[in-house]
């Protein structure tokens, strides 16, 4: 996993509430058995007005010029600003894969859906929760700036710095913060506690033996 410590980047708006993961990456792209290459399909139904499918060439697509990510002033942005309940719906990790592959490293919103929030950290994306009116203020500033509006996000200091010098702090739990700062392999980390897992299993085998040795390939 990619680490994230400090990040400075251009901001793009995704100005709606309840952005669901079907919208972030539609299902026809979930058939891929790879982890990469989803960026070109990010927000497919918003970026393009024709129906997309895996492998359809970009020059055959009909671009929706009004959509923010299609506008030159937001090109190359890496911070996405959105509204309440971002990432709701399906648990598909293809959503953060697509966002990350497209170039987003930070998403700012008043709230996130639980599974998406969790999935983001595991893919080097920092979801930042800020109060609703602060987010509104950022939208106002973003729209007021005629072009390149940038923010600086500082994970160790847990704050966002605006171009006019404001410092907005945010909360993040220590474990997730640490994993993201280090780009930690969580499985390796958990396996350091393997002895605790085995001890748990020994106890549970005694108290709930019906949970063991019931399913195997030969018994099907």
């Amino acid at each position: 996993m990619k680490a994230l410590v400090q990040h400075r980047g251009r901001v793009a708006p995704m100005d709606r509430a309840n952005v669901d993961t079907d919208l972030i990456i539609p299902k026809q792209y979930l058939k891929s058995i790879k982890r990469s290459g989803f960026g070109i399909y990010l927000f497919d139904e918003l970026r393009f007005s024709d129906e997309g499918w895996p492998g359809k060439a970009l020059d055959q697509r009909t671009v929706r010029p009004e959509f923010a990510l299609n506008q030159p002033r937001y090109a190359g942005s890496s911070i996405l600003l959105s509204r309440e309940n971002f990432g709701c719906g399906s648990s598909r990790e293809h959503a953060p894969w697509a966002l990350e592959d497209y170039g987003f490293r930070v998403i700012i919103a008043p709230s996130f859906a639980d599974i998406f929030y969790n999935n983001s950290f595991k893919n080097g994306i920092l979801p930042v929760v800020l109060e609703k009116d602060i987010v509104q203020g950022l939208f106002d500033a973003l729209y007021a700036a005629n072009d390149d509006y940038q923010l600086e996000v500082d994970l160790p200091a847990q704050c966002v710095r605006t171009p006019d010098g404001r410092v907005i702090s945010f909360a993040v739990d220590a474990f997730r913060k640490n994993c993201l700062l280090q780009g930690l392999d969580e499985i390796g980390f958990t396996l350091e506690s393997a002895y605790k897992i085995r001890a748990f299993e020994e106890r549970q085998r005694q108290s709930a033996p019906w949970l063991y040795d019931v399913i195997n390939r030969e018994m099907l």
Partner: protein
Amino acid sequence: MIARTLYDKIWDSHLVDAADDGSALIYIDRHLIHEVTSPQAFEGLRLAGRKPWRRDANIAMPDHNVSTDAQERRGGYAALKDETSRIQLQALDDNCDDFGIAEFRLNDLRQGIVHIVGPETGAVLPGMTVVCGDSHTSTHGALGVLAMGIGTSEVEHVLATQCLSTQKMKNMRIRVEGDLGPGVTPKDVILYIIGQIGTAGGTGCAIEFAGQAFRDMSVEGRMTVCNMAIEAGARVGLVGVDSKTIAYVKGRHFAPKGAQWDMAVAAWRELHSDPAAHFDREILIQAADIAPQVTWGTSPEMVASVTGRIPRTEDMADESGRKGLARALEYMSLAAGANIQSIALDKIFIGSCTNARIEDLRAAAAVVRGYRKADGVKLAMVVPGSGQVRAQAEAEGLDRIFLDAGFEWRAPGCSMCLAMNADKLGVGEHCASTSNRNFEGRQGFGGCTHLVSPAMAAAAGIAGHFVDIRDWEYRS
């Protein structure tokens, strides 16, 4: 001893490790695997040279991507027309072979939607912790199970360690008290709840469903409710264990037998919240307030009673509500203020992990019996949730009732719930669907979904538009 909620009890009994910062490691008893969210996880194991921690805790089956055309399926994956689907499905079989994981394969009678097959086979039992790379894993909570959807990185983590690294959620309880009216089903209850608390109403919480309505409800009905806890923002939905739960589990293929059964039942009887347990949030709803529900927009919270109408701009409380309404109505090509019953349907979908169990199909068949599909409805499809549900329905003659009415009778899978296979809506088509998500494009590019109960979907298929199921004339 401090009073604990059901969620607290299952959490406590599965805690492997807890750190001061609130992060915890919980043990996972059952891991359900399907073809869409697992290939990258197996690949991760392979790249790191890791093996599954405990093979007998896993069970896999293809569901999201399979064809529901019985003819096409007979030829196995080789006969599937869609190559990318074929590759993904084959990858699941190959990964299960490579890593020694049990799988119900495409033409196995027990194959079906993972959330239907888990409880039906007894692979999921009360008191377990259950995860799956699918947000509707909350379904299993109906059996007094701590079940939640996870992402692919977590699928890999659970495969490799049998644990989930997570944090404890808040406890929320939704009580529905009193008797549900005739024609009001579990689906209407959960849609009504989402309409009340919103799609983020349960974010960060495990929701326990309690009160008379859930006590009176069948276990399958409780599954419909818990299934859509995620649409209320909650990763976890739960119902306490009672004698119905135990009767449901008894005799299932993987359920304990003999002395272990008695031991298990004794443990399961403790699986309910203590009377004095503390909930961080409580909601009380009167069953009598709930009418059959229909969603009119692009989020499950955009829902109204079948006798109601679509909101008008002035009904919305704030600017973001007004914008959301305008955007949804534009997408759905519907007018503000229109009556719900004026919405005409092009397609009917009866299926999905929300509503494709035998009771759902019985309810739909009872409505359809003796009628014909409306001419304006291009396609009405019934997709049983599993091979076993399909076989049971056929044994009861339900397939004939549907076929005689001009409905299609399909092979099990997720089908048009998410339209990854050939079953999908066309641009601008309106569908009465028993599934769980009405997001833009969910059932096909440009498709317009209305979430309803199986009986309401069936009646809409006959009438060609929504009708109040409470006025239905059943034929015998």
